[in-house]
């Protein structure tokens, strides 16, 4: 089985979010970049499926040279090779077209990625790639088994989940508990250094959105503390001050 795992290169969850250059750019000062947590689930499931059934895993990122350490980490976790499409990730549509061109070349049985990136949280790329390639795309997938060219999965829906069956090829946007995150070991890290990482130039598609500026939410006021012997006061504040009851 040939698996493509799409990886985002995003600020760690605990990062302080700030913007520079008059709110036009994300401020990378002191920010640590990681594999997106949802993509980490996708990669971990790919490694498990390869262990079960054999095959190859290609890790893919659409990004500039600074994302290569993140791709190397994917190689250390268990991808066999990596591809970087050499361009900034302009928007969901642009990234989807880049992934689709790589996918057309590679003829993959399974394309896995996170349900969303944790920077822009769009959650759109898997569906767009599915439509461009004319194949099914499901998200958020919390369970994925492959048996004889067929996938059986569980997808989270409001208030529960649904179970689905579909023929490969398939795209899945992954989330917990599809697999346990894998931490690269020393052997994996050593091997990753010599695994192939190829750089390809973007196909000529354009983005169709443009972000003009960023902003931070207004600062929250101080918390009002209420004595645990005076819980009625909380109810009064919620009713009269916050007006939410």
């Amino acid at each position: 089985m040939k698996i493509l795992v799409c990886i985002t290169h995003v600020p760690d969850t605990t990062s302080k979010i700030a913007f520079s250059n008059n709110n036009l750019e994300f401020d990378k000062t002191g920010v640590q970049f990681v594999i997106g947590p949802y993509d980490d689930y996708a990669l971990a499931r790919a490694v498990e499926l390869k262990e079960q059934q054999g095959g190859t895993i290609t890790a893919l990122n659409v990004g500039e040279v600074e994302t290569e350490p993140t791709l190397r980490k994917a190689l250390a976790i268990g991808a066999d090779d990596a591809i970087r499409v050499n361009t900034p990730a302009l928007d969901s549509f642009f990234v989807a077209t880049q992934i689709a061109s790589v996918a057309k070349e590679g003829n993959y049985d399974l394309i896995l990625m996170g349900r969303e990136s944790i920077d822009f949280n769009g959650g759109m790329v898997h569906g767009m790639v599915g439509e461009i390639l004319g194949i099914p795309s499901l998200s958020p997938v919390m369970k994925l088994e492959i048996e004889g060219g067929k996938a059986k999965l569980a997808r989270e829906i409001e208030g529960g989940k649904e179970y689905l069956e579909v023929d490969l090829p398939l795209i899945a946007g992954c989330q917990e508990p599809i697999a346990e995150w894998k931490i690269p070991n020393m052997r994996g890290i050593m091997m990753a250094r010599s695994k192939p990482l190829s750089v390809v130039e973007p196909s000529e598609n354009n983005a169709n959105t443009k972000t003009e500026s960023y902003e931070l939410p207004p600062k929250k006021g101080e918390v009002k503390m209420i004595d645990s012997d005076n819980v009625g006061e909380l109810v009064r504040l919620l009713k009269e001050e916050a007006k939410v009851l």
Partner: protein
Amino acid sequence: MSVLVFVEQSEGKIKKSSREAVSYASAMNDGDVVALVMGTADGDQLATLGNNGAAKVVHSTDSRLDKGVIRAYSAGIAQVMESEGSDTLVMAESSIGNPVAARVSIKTSASLASNVVGLPDTSSGFKVKRSIYTGKAFANTILEASKRILILKKGAVPLKEDGAAASVESIDLAFDDSDFGVTITSQEKATGQVLLPEADIVVSGGRGLKGPENWGMIEELAAELGAATGCSKPVSDMDWRPHHEHVGQTGIKVAPTLYIAVGISGAIQHLAGVNSSKFIVVINKDADAPFFKAADYGIVGDAFDVVPKLIQAIKAAK
């Protein structure tokens, strides 16, 4: 501008989030708003979408659409956008709406924005504000294509409830076999509960509750408030509560008017799921719990002491 709204049902009722999407379309638009409903539905109920601002409801009664079939819904919406001449598609975020929107954007060459938090600015071009970095920031994004799709975050506009009845038209949609290539074998769904993503009030419990057997008071508090119940990640990881109640970075992101956290310390991953809430109440016995810094109101105290008192106080105030 000609706006189409994709409307979803749940348990035979039009979802409140879809009514919000119709309200949004009505508020942004000077033309008529058309709503699209797919699958078996009650005609009288469809007409009530007029109350939220729809002039016309287009209804496909094809019963294959009773379940959320992503590719068929996408094909259906693209056809209706074409036949109605819609340049803008609006929908509420959901487990069906999001994947459907992604596919429709490719079919129709539309620009797409998700997590939209307010009405567009159309003074020059078409600009929307969307939530990014899991609620920690916003982006002001211009949708450049001549068609656009907006997926709304809960609470993007107030619900409109003062319109007239809408006309209802049925429509025949054409599908390929491939549109039904994914088989939904079964669904497990909590019924009769307030669903977490739709709830105006959420009561969440964390490890401070010590075990799943103690959730009775969380459920009682939620019932008293008409709220949905949520939980922290450790609670869902330990299977005290189902994953669809997990609120946080890798779970459900909620945007209620009131979020009440009981026995949750407030790890940054949890805060990422609740920072779009209008008001946050934190009840924790540890006065140093980081959650208090993100709260509007706080009580330092043991959940087993405070929650029963809170239930009584709410009953007394009714």
